[in-house]
Every structure is written in C-alpha cells, then in structure tokens.
C-alpha cells in the first residue's frame, strides 16, 4: 500500500485556497528557501536521536531498529524537537495511506469546499496525490496543489487530472538570485508557469517581496506579470522574518516588508496586465 509522510493535516483552513479547506502538509521539500517559515518540513528525519532526550513530554523514543518514533498522544506540541533538529527535519511525521488520509477528509467533508495538498513539497508525493484526488473528487470535493514548481508537470500531468490546478510559488525569476534564495536556479518553476497557464491549470501565483531588494523584486514581478496576464490571481506576499532560520534572517533582514513597498509591486504587476495582482 502506498504511504506518504504527512507532517500535519489542518482540518479547517481559510488560507490554503478558496473557501474552507482541509490542508494536507507532506514532509520533505526539493528546495531550501532562505525565508522558509517551516524549515522542519524540508528534510526527512535521519533518526540521529538528538531530539529524543530533549523531549519534555517523553513523546519521542528510539526503537530497536534505531529509528526515532513519535507518540502523538504524549506530544504537547512544544516544538522543542524541531527547534533542536540540525537537519531541518521533524520527528513528528506520520506515514499515512490514502485510506487513512481519506478518513480524516471524510470527517471534514460536510464542512469544507475541498482539499489542498501542501508541504514541504507535495509533488514529491505525486502518485499518492493522484490517488487521493480521485477519492476526494468522488466526495464532490475540489483539489488544489500548493507547489514550489520543481515538479515536471508536463512530463507527468496525471496528478492534474482531478485538480483545479496549482497554486505556484515563483520566488525568483533570475537564475543567480534564485540559486541564492532557494538553492535552485528555478528553470523548472518558470517552465511550469508557462505550461500550467497554457493548459488552464494555473490557479494562482505567489511572489514574496523582500525589503530593499528592488532589482530582484522588480525582475521577478515583471517576469510573472508578463507571463500570466489576467489569467489568474497574483498574490504579492510580504516577507516576514518571524519563523525564518536565524542564519538567513541575517541575510534577508530582520524587518518585514512594509505594505506600501509591497503595494508598489502589485501596482507594477497590474500595470503590466496582471490585473488580479494584490498584496496579502
């Protein structure tokens, strides 16, 4: 049976797509973004055991097989383990089957419009998601993919079949800046932007605006706005240092992007034809 590493499931979310949605967050990511607010979702646990002895609730243990396991009942969600983890991973991950995830979704079903898969990077679980979406669609629920764009949707479009589309992060349009910011030149992201728009599966695009990075911000916003036009919403997101790893906070700054500064880029995008650009 196919299983996927689930970091958490949020029963009711108002910030992961339209309406009320159940959001499934998978563990593991293909990028390492400086500004990541959930760096504990980036890598898989290596069972180094550092977190085990520090858990104040005794919810973590190392089994006979040497693997770290997590007791969700004992856990008090104090986040000590993820703060300590040197590998940007989390011991609080549950390997779940499609049936197990569907059980949770069925419970939420009367109250939600649909589901959203996020992460980490959910497309690492593309096969699992394809099955999950088929099941959720049977319940009359819409399915959305929240992706960093590292997955080759053109080569493997199956996962899009039962999905309204992709909420795509375009973090940097310039290769060098992208390499710095997300540890990847971002070629696939830009390819996906064009491909998904072409097949009508680009649900929304998001770009984070960093304080003082005038050239980088403008280059990315111009690039996206010219590519998407008015085909989908374009969310301009303000950088917020809260939750960002300390070493990267030093690089990106300890101030959040102020709203007027972000508005400038939303206006720029709208001027370039991305009429549905706005600051969130």
């Amino acid at each position, binding site marked *: 049976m196919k299983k996927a590493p*689930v*970091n*958490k*499931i*949020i*029963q*009711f*979310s*108002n*910030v*992961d797509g*339209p*309406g*009320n*949605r159940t959001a499934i967050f998978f563990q593991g990511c293909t990028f390492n973004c400086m500004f990541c607010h959930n760096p504990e979702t980036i890598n898989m646990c290596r069972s180094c055991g550092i977190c085990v002895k520090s858990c104040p609730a005794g919810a973590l243990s190392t089994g006979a097989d040497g693997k770290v396991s997590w007791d*969700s009942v004992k856990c008090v*969600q104090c986040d000590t383990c993820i703060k300590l983890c040197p590998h940007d991973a989390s011991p609080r991950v*549950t390997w779940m089957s499609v049936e197990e995830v569907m059980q*949770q979704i069925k*419970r*939420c079903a*009367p*109250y*939600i*419009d649909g589901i959203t898969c996020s992460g980490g990077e959910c497309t690492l679980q593309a096969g699992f998601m394809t099955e999950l979406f088929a099941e959720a669609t049977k319940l009359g629920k819409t399915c959305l993919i929240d992706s960093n764009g590292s997955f080759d949707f053109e080569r493997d479009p199956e996962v899009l079949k039962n999905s309204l589309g992709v909420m795509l992060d375009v973090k940097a349009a310039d290769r060098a800046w992208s390499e710095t910011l997300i540890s990847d030149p971002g070629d696939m992201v830009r390819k996906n932007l064009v491909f998904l728009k072409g097949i009508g599966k680009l649900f929304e695009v998001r770009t984070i605006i960093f304080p003082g990075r005038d050239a980088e911000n403008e280059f990315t916003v111009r690039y996206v706005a010219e590519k998407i036009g008015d085909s989908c919403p374009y969310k301009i997101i303000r950088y917020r240092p809260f939750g960002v790893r300390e070493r990267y906070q030093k690089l990106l700054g300890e101030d959040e992007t102020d709203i007027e500064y972000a508005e400038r880029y939303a206006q720029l995008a709208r001027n370039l034809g991305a009429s549905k650009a706005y600051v969130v």
Partner: protein
Amino acid sequence: MSDALNIIQDPTLTYKQELLALARLGESTDDSLRYSDEYYEAKRKGALCDLNEGVMPYRPRYICPDYELLFSKGCEFLQLDPPRDLLEAVNALEIFYCHVPSITSFPVYLGDLDRLLEPFVIREDRAYAKKVLGLFLRNIDRVQTDSFVHADIGPEDSITGRLLLELTEEMQLAVPNITLRYDPEKTSDDFALACVKCMLKTAKPSFANHRMFVKEWGERYAIASCYNGLSIGGGGFTLPRLRLYECALEAKSPDDFIERELPRHIDLQLEYMDKRVRFIVEQSNFFKTNFLVTEGFVKQENFTGMFGVVGLAECCNFLLGIEDKKKGFGMNKEATELGIRIMEAIDKRVSEHEAPYCDAYVHRYRLHAQVGIDSDGMDDSPGTRIPIGVEPTMLEQLEVNEKFHPFFPTGTGDIFKFEETYIKTPEAILPIIKGSLSKGLRYFSGYLENNDVVRVTGYLVKKSEIEKLRAKKQSLNNVTVFGMGAQDGGHALDRRIQHHEESSC
C-alpha cells in the same frame, strides 16, 4: 442599609435600571406562591435555579406577539390603525414594543422584521427606506435598552434584510440581537454570505436551523431573547434550570445519578414549573386582561414552559472522576456518551410529564439549554457546551454540539470566535455553518476576536460599555453588567479562537 437604599445609591444604575431593581425588590416581599421543602433545599444547594424570575410571576417570561396581526388589523388598545406606509409601520412597531412585557420588561421578540417591513420598503426608494430603517434601529437601541431584545430575518433574501444588514454593520449596535433563519433551499448563498460578513463585524446575525425549528414548531416560530425557539403568538411561561453539576454532587455513580438523583431533581423542577404556570394563568392578570391577549396578539395555548439545564459538561466530568477538564466532556468519548445518556433521561422524563396548559404542545414542556448567568462562574458551563478554555478543534466542537442540539426545541447554541484573517475570507465560514446545520446543529453564532460588539454567552455587549461600568459609570444597556460578570467569573470572552494552524494529525 436597606436593599432599596443600596439600589438608589448605586452610581452605575440608570433611572430605569433603578426602577426595575426596585420593582423586583417589591415583588420579593410576597410569599403567596409556595413550593415543597425539598424544592427549597435543592435550591439552597444550588442544584435548582429560578434565574431570579421573581416570586410572583405577573407576566410570562417571554412573549412573542403576532406582529402580522398588528399590521393587518391594528391595535385598539394602543389606538393604532394598520400602517399604510413605511413610516407608519415602524412607528406602530416602536409604540407596540413599549407595551410588550417580559421577564426583563423589554420585548424579547421584535418580529420577523424583513417579512413585516418588505411590502412597505419596496414602495420607497432605497435611500429613503434606509434612512427610516436606520432611525428605527436607533430607536430600538436607545429605547429597548436590553440585549435580550431580538429580531429575526430570513430565510429568504429581501431588500429589507439587506438594508438591515448594512445598517447593523454601519451602526455597530448591541441591540437588537438578530437571527437569520437559514434554510439551504430558501436562503441564497449570496444572502447567507452577506450575513456572515455582518456577523464578523458585529457579532450578529446568528444562524438558526430553520428546518429543525419548523419541524418542531411549524412555520410560525420565533427566535427570541438569546436563542430561544418559541411560537409566534405565544411564548414561554417560565424558565428555571437544573444546575447539573450540583445535581450530581450527591450521586454515588453515573447510574445512581441517572436512576435516583436526576429524576428527583427533574420532578422538583417540574413541580416548580407547574405551580408557576398555574399561577400565571389562573391568578395573575396577564391572560385575563392584557390587550395582547384580549386582542389576540398572543394566545395562552401557544405558551409552553421551558425546562432549562446547565452544566452538563461539569456534571459528566464529576460523575466520571475526571479532574482535568481538557480530558473531559467534549474531548472524551466516555464523558460525551454519558452526556447523551443524561440528556435522553431528562428528555424522557420531561416528555412523560403532563404539564398544565401548554395546549399547543400536547401539554408538554420543552427543553432549553440555558446559556448561563454571571454568577455561575466556572462551575456550570452554559447548557451542554464544552467549557471555555478547553475547546477542541472547531470540527470536534461542532461534532459534539450536533449530538446535543436536537434535544432543545426552546433553544441552544454555540459561539465561535474567529481570528482576524477571517474578515477577508467570509466564504470560508459559510460552508462550516451550512455543514453543521445539515448535520443537526441548531444554532451557530460567531464573532471576530477584536470587535467591540461581542457575544458573551448568548447575548451581545460592547466591550467599551463594560469598561464604563468598571469605571463606575452608567451603561444604558441593562445587560452590560451581566457581560462584565460573565467575563470576570466565567472568562466568557476567552473562548478558543479559530486559527488556521489547527492540526488533527
């Protein structure tokens, strides 16, 4: 110092509040209505509570006049002809409201305002109609100065309904309380969404399960006071309540409670209700001489007694020896199932009791999940609610509510507090409301965490008005003082906030 002197020297009381307090004091000097010694003993122990209804009922607790009759025939006693236009209509209502008694001496039901006023509103231009309705709402807020004053709208969309929502948002008033009667087939998503937006900004309207109420009461039902289901042209004689936690204190086990202590207390409350209902109908003047009765605005047979309960959560936790309420009723299957057994036992015994009068309900009283009063503190949570501060995720809270709401035709409800991002995503709340009502929730209330107008337990207060009382200043609204008490004693404004980072995994 006498009680009367205390009242007239209290700097926080307005003149009208003094007058009402003195009337209550005067009423308490009579002892012609007597109950059994066992009743008084249970009351002394706090197991039974009469909600300070007063020892000599001289009117039913809640009265829901038939305002359509006022509009079709006028009112002889008040010398009102049937209104011919919007001004005459709101003027007739404003006058009439001042003559509708209740436990608070303010009208607890103002009518289905959209249905009543729509024929007049559609004949006027929108701006004029809005002006008149705005003055109407201002009159209600300043004259009917009590948050248990309640108006209903829906289930259908209407110009009047929209105008009332717009004005409610613009005026930010605590009075009146408002309910949308929600029916998935009659209420459009667009209108329901307008109601959600208004609710986020003003803590009203709440959403009532129209189909559920219609099944129990027929089409002509009112939502009055906090969230009380009653008949239009009728009302509620009286509302005492079992304080279930205190009822359980002498029980040796859950079974002992259900077999012995619970029935004993139920019977004492029924005795109290029977005597009181008889007194109101047979001894007091109301049903003999009041114009509401003589002119047919209410009919005695459309009244029923409301059998109230509070503190089910604490009762179940106590009986099961659960000390950490985070692991108790609402979060703990065994405790929640015991709660259902207890409610089934109450429902059965009350429905087997032949009540005096209550003709329209085959001589039966109807259950009510009482919303709590300020003096309850943390001992008894409202009705069957999960205690404040330990609420599970919203989904889990709704699932528990859905099991209990069907027991209470005369009202129950729960309140959800949303964090600020929801103001931008009202469409994320509507499916929650629709889903829960379809699954058996009776009544849904919500508000946004940082609003001035907030819902305390069932009624609305302004936080800024509570601050006035704290500064020993007067608050025009009679209910502000309850809000302050519930905030201090019951932490009623500290309920769990619906955030977006909820996890089930």
